């Protein structure tokens, strides 16, 4: 059985490393890492992930813009996308949700609990 692939896009090297570690070691996923929105689009087309984790604030192509472009790709309109956001503003979280994502995960997150939260989101989709 091939592992489920998850695409992680964050411009912060440390955050990417910890997300990858958490999803791979705890969740048993295979993780593809992208450093920018542009890289994420490229990797998405190649790797066909089961879920995309997107940072919100990134230089050039930010999270919402990357989301819009993924949605326009073949098959991209239905892939689960989750935002990783460091915002604490209620209004900002609501705005992000309204963009059509499966969830908004707050930073900082507990690295050991991240994988099970992703599992939950995938489970909700399957149900």
């Amino acid at each position, binding site marked *: 059985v091939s592992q489920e692939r998850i695409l992680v896009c964050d411009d912060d090297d*440390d955050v990417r490393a910890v997300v990858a570690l958490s999803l791979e070691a705890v969740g048993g996923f295979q993780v593809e890492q992208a450093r920018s929105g542009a890289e994420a689009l490229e990797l998405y087309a190649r790797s066909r992930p089961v879920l995309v984790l997107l940072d919100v604030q990134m230089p050039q192509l930010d999270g919402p813009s990357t989301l819009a472009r993924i949605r326009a790709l073949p098959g991209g309109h239905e892939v689960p996308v989750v935002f990783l956001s460091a915002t604490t503003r209620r209004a900002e979280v609501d705005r992000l949700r309204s963009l059509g994502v499966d969830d908004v995960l707050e*930073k900082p*997150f507990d690295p050991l609990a991240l994988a099970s939260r992703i599992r939950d989101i995938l489970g909700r989709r399957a149900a």
Partner: protein
Amino acid sequence: VSSPLDTLKQEFAARRAERLSELRALLERAEQQDGGEGVRELRAAFHKLAGSAGIFGFPRSGEIAREGEQILERAVDENGSRLPGAIAAVVGRLVRSLDEEAGVLVPGLAEGPIALLIPGPGGRVDAFERELTAAGFATRIATCAEAPSLCPGASTILIDVDASGDGYALCRRLSEIPNASATRILYSDGPSAFDLVKAHESRADRLIHRASDLRTVLRGRRLTASDRIAGRILSVEDDSACGRAIEAVLKSAGHSVRMLSTPEGLLEQLSAFRPELLLLDCDLPKVHGFELARVVRCDARHESIPIVFVSSRAEQVDRRKAARAGGDDFVPKPFAPEELLEVVETHLRRNRALRRKLDADPLTDLLNRSASVSAVDDLIQTAAERRSGVLVAILDLDHFKRVNDEFGHPTGDRVLRELAAHLQESLRACDVAGRLGGEEMVVAMEGASRDELLIRLDELRSTVPIELPSGKVTFSAGCAWYPDDGAQAGVLLKRADGALYAAKTGGRNRVVAAWTLPETPA
């Protein structure tokens, strides 16, 4: 998982300086622009850290970053992106909190003396940080605004002269903070004479122009607050009130002072007391200070001794006459105590630095043979005044010929240099370390307790950190004690040499004291 996760956390901890310097660069840019895009970028950086720090075991730092983000957010909303003054303090708190939380995460990280690093715009932080870490410091990077609040905890402060426009002013300001005993080192990538003057005026302890200079400063000379320079000063002053004032001021700063009320006896004292600086009153009866200076300068042995004139006549014309007579400086009467000390200590330092260059053994940078002998004599002089003693030791590397034969002379040279570095690092600034020649070195330490110094000497022996494929490098040592074993360097070295012979024949890698040997006829 926990172990790779810990590794990631530790990497995050190790890279916190990088993050802070990014943050700082943005802060500086925002300060310069006084608002606009810089504030937004800074806010984004705080936002990022607010999100990531908590993941890596820095929850409090994350909260502080969040606070910074919110302050900047309000600024953007309310007053069109002007930079709020409170933000510098937030960065200061972030520095401390990141260090504290890193200390919990990585045991031992927060231990050791603290060095404060204040870089200039686009300053090279890495090289300095490496040197400071290698010297055992926990380094904190700060902006000019944060420096005063972080300064009291630091033992060394390194300031780029271009920091926020004026590192000199900052250095001066830090010197005025009560209880701040840190050594202040200024960095300029191409210091001119003008820089040196400004460095002195801003009360810097050192001006360096390369990161590697730091190594010399930190290792070669232990720069601590207690390491103030103390020299031997000879003063000729006929006014008894003024003479008493000079004596009191100099002695209060730890200098050895000898006073003469007339020029008679000056030449004898120059040889007997061997002063490092001469203070001459200009208005002596019979002979003028300037003439006296010329007489002193006639003797080749005293060509380079700093001469400082003290005079109630401090007109421009007098100063010029003083300079022509071979004077190095001029202190007008009445003088402020600090002024006298500043002038005296500046010349002592410079002259010692120059002498060091002339006196250095080129291979090891320790004192050469003749300089070692006179340095031991100087130490005896100091001990005589303090009624203490001097432990004089000769160190000889064991089986050094074999090292050269087996591994070649470059390795032999490296061993000598490493032993010299070991001595420099382990000894106090006031101790003497020199190379007598070949693989023989001399160490002399002044103190009240012979046995305590003997223990320190044996510690030097047991902690030699040099390893060759053939095994650990060791040395044997013989030592003698002033005053019991002799009153001159030559005699003491001879006695130490006899003890060294006993150490060698006794099996090497040991210290033998001359006073434990049976009496030998002189």
